[in-house]
C-alpha cells in the first residue's frame, strides 16, 4: 500500500482520510463521509455550481480549467441523458497521485460524482481507471457495491427522489485515453482517438449527451469543499488557484513521495525542504514541474509559487503536479530522448503532425545520443516541434513538442556537445542493447 508522505507543511484536505481505513464505508461515514452530498440535496443546482466556483478549484488533470465554470457549461435542458465521467486514466509520466485517492478514499470519488450529478442534472456516472490499476479497480468496485447496498446509489438515493447509477470502467493501457474526447471513445468501446471540437463534451459528449469530464483528484476534492467551506478552501491557496493539491515528487530527491501542499507552494522549498534536497551532495540541474509534457525549468527559475498562473509566467505549466527532479549527472539529450520515445509510442496516429512529428523527433534525438548527428539536426528538432504545436486534434502533439523545444532552448550547449561523431559524451549508450519501448 502506498501512503502519502508526511511533512509539517502538508495541509490534509483531500488526504484527510488517507491511512484511516476509509475504503470501508462505515469508516468513511464516521469520518464525515456522505455529509457533503446530503447538504447538496438541500441546495439548488446553481448554488452548488457557485460554491465550486467560489472554491477556486481548477482541473487537476493538467489544464487547470476552473471546475465550477466547466459544470456551468452543461445545458439545463437536454433531450439526451447527461453523464459524469471521472478520468482516472492517470498516465502522465511523473504522476502517481490519483492512485492514492482510489486506494485510501474511494468513497470521496463516488460522493464527488453524486454532487456533480446533482449540479448538472445527470443520473449516471462512470469512473474510468487505467487498466494497470487492477487492484484499485477492485477497491473502487467494492466501494460502489457498498454504496448501492446502503442505498447511496441506485433508485431513490438517500431516501430522496433522485436516482443515480455508477459504473467502474477499466482502461487497457493507452496514454492517449487520458485526453477527454479519446476517453469517451474508449468508454464507447472504440479505439481511443480524439474527437474534433466543437461540439465540446459539456454539450455533446458521451453517447451524444452533455458530459462533465473531471480528473479523479478534481472530483474527489469536491466533497471536501462542502465539508470545510468554499471560501475556506479557496483561502488555502493563492488568487484564482484555490485550495491544495497532491504533488508527486520523483527523481533525484532524498524523500520522493506524494505530498498534499497548498496551491502556490514555493517550488524551491518543495525540492529542498519537503523533498529533502538532492542526494549524494549532487547539484540540481533541472526540474520538470508538472509531468513529462511540461517545459523544463533551470535551477535559477524555480523560486516560484506552484500554481497554474505563476508556473505559466515562468514559461512552463503546473500540469498534473508531477515534479521530476534531475541532478547534475543527467544527460539532457538522453532525458529528452526518453521523453519523446514515450510520446512517439503513445501517439494514436490519428493526425499527421503528431504521428510523424514524434517519430522524427525520436529519430533526430536518437542520432544525437548515439552519434552520427550533424549540426542541422539541432535546429531541425526545434523546427519540427514548432510545426507540431497547435496543429493537432488533441494536446498530445503539444505535450511532445513543448518539452522538446524547451530542452533544446535551455540546454543547447549540451546538444552541441553531442556533435562529436561519437554520441553522448556524458552517458554513453550502454554496451548492451536496450529495448526501445
Amino acid at each position: 500500500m502506498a501512503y502519502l508522505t508526511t511533512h509539517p507543511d502538508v495541509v490534509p484536505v483531500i488526504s484527510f482520510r488517507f491511512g484511516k481505513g476509509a475504503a470501508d464505508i462505515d469508516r468513511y461515514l464516521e469520518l464525515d463521509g456522505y455529509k457533503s452530498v446530503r447538504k447538496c440535496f438541500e441546495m439548488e443546482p446553481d448554488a452548488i455550481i457557485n460554491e465550486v466556483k467560489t472554491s477556486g478549484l481548477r482541473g487537476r488533470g493538467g489544464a487547470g480549467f476552473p471546475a465550477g465554470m466547466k459544470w456551468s457549461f452543461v445545458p439545463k435542458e437536454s433531450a439526451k441523458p447527461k453523464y459524469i465521467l471521472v478520468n482516472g486514466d492517470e498516465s502522465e509520466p511523473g504522476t502517481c497521485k490519483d492512485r492514492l485517492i482510489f486506494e485510501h478514499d474511494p468513497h470521496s470519488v463516488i460522493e464527488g460524482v453524486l454532487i456533480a450529478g446533482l449540479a448538472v442534472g445527470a443520473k449516471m456516472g462512470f469512473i474510468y481507471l487505467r487498466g494497470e490499476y487492477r487492484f484499485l479497480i477492485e477497491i473502487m468496485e467494492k466501494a460502489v457495491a457498498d454504496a448501492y447496498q446502503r442505498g447511496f446509489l441506485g433508485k431513490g438515493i438517500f431516501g430522496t427522489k433522485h436516482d443515480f447509477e455508477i459504473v467502474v470502467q477499466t482502461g487497457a493501457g493507452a496514454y492517449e485515453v487520458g485526453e477527454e474526447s479519446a476517453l469517451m471513445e474508449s468508454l464507447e468501446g472504440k479505439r481511443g482517438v480524439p474527437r474534433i471540437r466543437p461540439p465540446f463534451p459539456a454539450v455533446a459528449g458521451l453517447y451524444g449527451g452533455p458530459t462533465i469530464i473531471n480528473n479523479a483528484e478534481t472530483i474527489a476534492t469536491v466533497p471536501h469543499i462542502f465539508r470545510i467551506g468554499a471560501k475556506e478552501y479557496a483561502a488555502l491557496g493563492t488568487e484564482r488557484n484555490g485550495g491544495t493539491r497532491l504533488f508527486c515528487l520523483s527523481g533525484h530527491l532524498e524523500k520522493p513521495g506524494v505530498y498534499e501542499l497548498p496551491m502556490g507552494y514555493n517550488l524551491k522549498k518543495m525540492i529542498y525542504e519537503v523533498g529533502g534536497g538532492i542526494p549524494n551532495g549532487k547539484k540540481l540541474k533541472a526540474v520538470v514541474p508538472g509531468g513529462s509534457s511540461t517545459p523544463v525549468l533551470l535551477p535559477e527559475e524555480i523560486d516560484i509559487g506552484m500554481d497554474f498562473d505563476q508556473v505559466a509566467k515562468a514559461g512552463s505549466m503546473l500540469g498534473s503536479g508531477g515534479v521530476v527532479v534531475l541532478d547534475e549527472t543527467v544527460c539532457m539529450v538522453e532525458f529528452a530522448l526518453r521523453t519523446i520515445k514515450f510520446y512517439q509510442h503513445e501517439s494514436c496516429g490519428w493526425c499527421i503532425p503528431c504521428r510523424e512529428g514524434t517519430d522524427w523527433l525520436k529519430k533526430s534525438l536518437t542520432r544525437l545520443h548515439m552519434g552520427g548527428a550533424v549540426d542541422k539536426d539541432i535546429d531541425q528538432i526545434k523546427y519540427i516541434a514548432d510545426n507540431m504545436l497547435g496543429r493537432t486534434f488533441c494536446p498530445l502533439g503539444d505535450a511532445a513538442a513543448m518539452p522538446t523545444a524547451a530542452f533544446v532552448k535551455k540546454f543547447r550547449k549540451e546538444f552541441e556537445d553531442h556533435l562529436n561523431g561519437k554520441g553522448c559524451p556524458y552517458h554513453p549508450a550502454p554496451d548492451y542493447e536496450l529495448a526501445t519501448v
Partner: protein
Amino acid sequence: MAAENTTIFSPQLAARFDRLVTLYPVKRSALVPMLLYAQDEIGYISDAVVAEVAQRIGITELDVRNVVSYYSLMRTKPVGKYHVQVCTNISCMLRGGNELLHHCSQRLGIGHKQTTPDGLFSLEEVECIGACSWAPAVQVNYDYHENLTPESMDKVLDQYRAKASK
C-alpha cells in the same frame, strides 16, 4: 448470449459478461473490459476470444480486432505465467530503471517481449505505470513492486519462482 454450453469462458466469467453488457447505455461499452478480463482468464486474446466477444456484443470480429490492436495491455500471443513489466520512463530511468531492465534480462536470459523456455517468465519494457514517487518500479502481472534494486528484484523473481513450484 446465455447459451452456456457454447462459451469458451468459465461459468463465472460468462455470468460476469452477461451482466456487464447490461450496465451501459450501449452494449459496446463493455468491449474493453470484456477483452481484458477474457485475456486474464485465457492468457491472451485468441481468435476464439475475438469471436465470442464480437458475438456477445453484436459487432464484427474486425471491430473487435481494431480495438485489440490499439491498447497496449491487450496481446494476441501468450506470455509467461509471470509477466515482468519494467518501467523505464523518466522517473524510473533517473533511479535505475534501465539498469533494472538489463538486470532482469540477464537473470531471466530473455529480452524485451520474450518468454523463458519453461514459460514461467516473460519480460517487457513498459511505459509509466504510475509509481513515479516509488521508482524504480516493476509490475508482475497486476502486482506492483516498488523502490527496487537489482538485489531486491532478485528476491521478487525468487518469490514468483517459489510460488510456481508449490
